[in-house]
């Protein structure tokens, strides 16, 4: 049931294709740039679930990516030769165009969220691996010598000294990876992963501007909020970084 533009003003081709978004509001009927009232009415039913999906998609991708990158960085930190192959692999994954990547993976793992996560995780590896390794390598050698001379074991040194001191660059990597993933995850709707990409694709298909603008703005807001949260977390976790002698 499509709602046509008011008679008398023949629409420019191909004509508004507003689907069943409720014909009540003239804003919706005329498909104006952004219909605030419609957005508010439909937020709970159409956007909130997608927003939650999007957060899940991103959280899982960045979380799994961080675990893999941390493990790889720890290996590369002990075994220098490991850095080059893993860097090359993660850089290669990073260069694959996202749509092509999703499409390729569909042939292996099907149209589902798991497929999307594989691609999203792959994109986080480069930045997370490089930053984590750089952080581990930037730990001051004198702190390591002190730890060794105090009788700390390798594991104790890693947990108590190296990882905490590597935290600022790790957090910087997490911020970039998170914001990038939030943006990339919208494409994942293409293979049925859900998230804010769904209303964006939908809006593009139907031509209903309010829908894809609202979803796009939500994705941007989510990225800003996530970045802000990570900054706050970093300040909380690295109090020493701000406290310097004047």
């Amino acid at each position: 049931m499509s709602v046509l533009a008011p008679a008398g003003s023949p629409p420019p081709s191909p004509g508004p294709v507003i689907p069943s978004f409720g014909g009540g509001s003239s804003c919706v009927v005329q498909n104006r740039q952004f219909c605030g009232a419609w957005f508010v009415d439909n937020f709970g039913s159409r956007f909130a679930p997608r927003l939650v999906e999007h957060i899940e998609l991103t959280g899982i991708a960045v979380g799994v990516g961080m675990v893999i990158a941390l493990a790889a960085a720890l290996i590369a930190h002990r075994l220098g030769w490991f850095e080059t192959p893993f860097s090359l692999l993660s850089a290669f994954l990073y260069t694959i165009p996202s749509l092509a990547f999703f499409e390729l993976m569909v042939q292996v793992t099907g149209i589902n969220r798991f497929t999307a996560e594989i691609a999203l995780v792959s994109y986080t590896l480069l930045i997370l691996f490089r930053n984590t390794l750089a952080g581990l390598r930037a730990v001051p050698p004198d702190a390591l010598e002190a730890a060794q001379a105090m009788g700390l074991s390798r594991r104790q040194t890693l947990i108590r000294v190296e990882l905490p001191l590597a935290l600022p660059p790790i957090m910087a990597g997490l911020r970039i990876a998170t914001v990038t993933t939030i943006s990339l995850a919208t494409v994942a709707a293409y293979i049925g992963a859900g998230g804010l990409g769904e209303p964006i694709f939908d809006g593009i298909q139907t031509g209903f501007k309010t829908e894809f603008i609202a979803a796009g703005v939500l994705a941007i807001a989510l990225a800003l909020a996530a970045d802000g949260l990570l900054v706050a977390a970093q300040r909380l976790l690295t109090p020493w970084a701000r406290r310097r002698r004047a």
Partner: protein
Amino acid sequence: MISGEDTQVAATRPATTAAPIAFLNVSKRYPGRAQAAVGNLSFEVPSGEICVLIGPSGCGKTTALKMVNRLIPMTDGDITIDGRSVNALQVSQLRRGIGYVFQQIGLFPHMTVEGNIGTVPRLLGWSKARIRERALELLQLVGLGSEDDLRRYPGEFSGGQQQRIGVARAMAVDPPIMLMDEPFGAIDPITRDRLQDDFLRLHREVRKTIIFVTHDIDEAIKMGDRIAIMRDGRLVQIDTPDNLLAAPADEFVADFVGADRGLKRLRVWTLNDLELDPLSGDTLPSAPAATSLRDALSLMLTAGATSVAVLGQDGTATGSVSLEAIAAMLGPEPRAPAP
């Protein structure tokens, strides 16, 4: 060498421990190098003494030091602490019993002062309250120490203060011995002098056995109960600062301690060490009895006098010391300082 007064001071504090260290024919060779970095090193550091290792760079002094806590493994020989080989213990256990202070300090920038000092105690399972109490006690011992300082981060302190914290951290679990690798080497001269004085005072209280590496002969003379001079990985001479300055074993040692070794010796003694002449009645420059002979000499030369009045505890002159008396100390047959 513990005098009566010192033992009294030590007795007022909670019992502290010290242990003798012995090097027994210790060698360190690196593969592919003909000369040993350390060759056949043998000497003993009695309990509670500061032994300074000194020599030109590359002489093996730091290598020798780091073999004690096995930061560098020795190739041959043995090092014992209190008669037990350092190789007989698990390395982490060995190191927890040895305080280590080095030039770069190595405080953990992400931990508060309390966290830094409490690192080893935490590993040993001390309670929070006990760690806090110990950290505060140690901070006060090294001349810092408001409760506030405990919660601050190393980056908020000056270099000299950081090294004080470094010393406090090294003493956290009251190790019987301490290794100090040019601990004051990166600190400006005025602060260094204060740190040295404070550390000597601290040492009189806690009486650890200390091996102290430096390349600065003045620091060695000031800090060492005994000084071991090394060259090319070998021990050239080990003796008290006074004997070393009075009777260098060879040309190299004489060179190393410097042409002004006579003046340096004057630094080892104070006016207290000389028998006082009666006061003559002339107006003389005056100095407290704890003044070094070097400073007293300088005072005489500056004032154009040939004697200096010695002030007792209450600030009144108790006698005088003459230029001749000082010169006699340095004579070819040095007279032993008065007990």
